[in-house]
């Protein structure tokens, strides 16, 4: 089996506070892996390591090794724009840019390509492809000039996924992508993830254990910065090896 992301003894500190302790994980290619655990256990921190967005907060110290697509991302020759192009990210609150739907989809591509390198027909086609693959094209094809922030939350979240696609990422990181959505929106996003899972590697952080069980093939349980258990979802939920995992998945706390 091939792995998209591998970490070796990854430790991370925010100032004096150690948020990740010797995390060793292997995220397999082309399927959905979910990260579960109580609040503050380092799930989001781990997720944000993989495209190095947590460096922006300052005061962050990282030790250990993270290999994304076979390349150590802390090597000196790694280009952050290229890394983030390959590793897309979807946030907890849908955060489309306050510009039109059309421009939102093209934004990522525009910052990675020289100015005026796309013709109008090319860009039209890219927008149509991206929106079609997230099932938004039918709803929005007449409203492409609409401000993206005025869409429904569910559509906004799908648009946030759609704008990653023209960049042709290999991995998509999702930080509680459904926590701001209602049941219908959650269903729609989950369905979308399952359809896209063959093409992209998904890593999602979720507090919703039912969701982790529904969508993911493998599941990682974290507790106070440590990776406790990483197994097939079914096995992790039904026959947890570790007592902390058992306590959490059977909702004895957390």
């Amino acid at each position: 089996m091939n792995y998209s992301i591998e970490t070796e003894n990854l430790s991370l500190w925010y100032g004096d506070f150690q948020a990740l302790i010797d995390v060793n994980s292997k995220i397999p290619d082309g399927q959905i892996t979910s990260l579960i655990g109580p609040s503050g256990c380092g799930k989001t921190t781990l997720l944000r390591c993989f495209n190095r967005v947590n460096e922006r907060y300052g005061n962050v110290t990282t030790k250990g090794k993270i290999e994304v697509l076979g390349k150590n991302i802390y090597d000196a020759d790694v280009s952050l724009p290229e890394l983030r192009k390959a590793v897309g990210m979807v946030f907890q609150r849908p955060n489309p840019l306050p510009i039109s739907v059309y421009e939102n989809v093209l934004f990522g591509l525009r910052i990675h390509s020289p100015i005026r390198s796309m013709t109008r027909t090319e860009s039209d086609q890219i927008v149509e492809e991206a929106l079609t693959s997230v099932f938004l094209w039918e709803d929005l094809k007449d409203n492409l000039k609409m401000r993206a922030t005025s869409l429904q939350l569910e559509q906004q979240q799908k648009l946030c996924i759609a704008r990653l696609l023209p960049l042709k990422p290999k991995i998509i990181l999702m930080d509680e992508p459904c926590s701001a959505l209602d049941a219908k929106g959650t269903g729609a996003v989950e369905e979308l993830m399952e359809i896209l899972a063959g093409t992209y590697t998904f890593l999602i952080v979720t507090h919703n254990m039912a969701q982790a069980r529904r969508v993911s093939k493998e599941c990682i349980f974290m507790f106070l910065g440590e990776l406790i258990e990483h197994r097939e979802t079914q096995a992790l939920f039904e026959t947890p090896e570790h007592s902390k995992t058992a306590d959490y998945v059977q909702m004895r706390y957390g």
Partner: protein
Amino acid sequence: MNALTTRPELRKKIVLLSITVIIEGVAFIFFWSVLRKTAATHMQASSASRTSDALPNLLSDLNLILPMSLLAILLGIVCAFYLEEWLSSTSWIRRFIESQVAFLTGIPSLLYGLLAVIIFFGYAGVFKATRTTFQHNTALFYTEMLIFILMVIPVAIKATQEALRSVETPIRESTYALGANRWQVLTQQVIPRAFPQMLAGGCRAMSQAFAAAALLTGIHIWSHTTGLRGLPDRFMLFLGGALLLSNASSFLTEIYVPASTQQN
């Protein structure tokens, strides 16, 4: 964070406060001595070197104020970008500059006007009655320059920082996560959204400058009728009070960052 880790924070705050008080105390005593010496010698100097027509005076004032304020505001904006976008919020350079900016913007422009008078008379006093128009203008130039540095730049820095902060985090986060570099995030998302506020901040900085200039003119007239009797001591009393209070407030708000907000 527990109670143990907040103690060094308090210690650091007290050390910084004492350093600033010492620096400002020395400056304060220096100004006081200069003031007392020059206010006494200068009183008789006349402003005969300037023409009494309104228009040439106005034009020469504008000629000085406009280019300088543009320069000062630009410098303030660049400084604010550096503080806000390049330095991390825990960097001590940023916290020190921010505390000083808060301190300088907290002083009412009245006091800057008075400060300008002292410096102007102090400088011009060197030439006494023999000064020429050129020397008069040089004194005016240095005075304006100092006041702009002390007053306009901090206001511009503060206003620009507020404008940059008003651009919501999700916009920056999503742009960075799509692989944009800092320059692209700034030019394509942050500046277009922060521009109106930055412009408003620039106007506020200019208005401060004009208020001080207006005061300067008033004081100038007053000085010819009363000879500024008793001004030095009263001025230093108020300036001292304002410095102390403003300093205390800026330390409370800027230097002391509650431990809970330092970490994500």
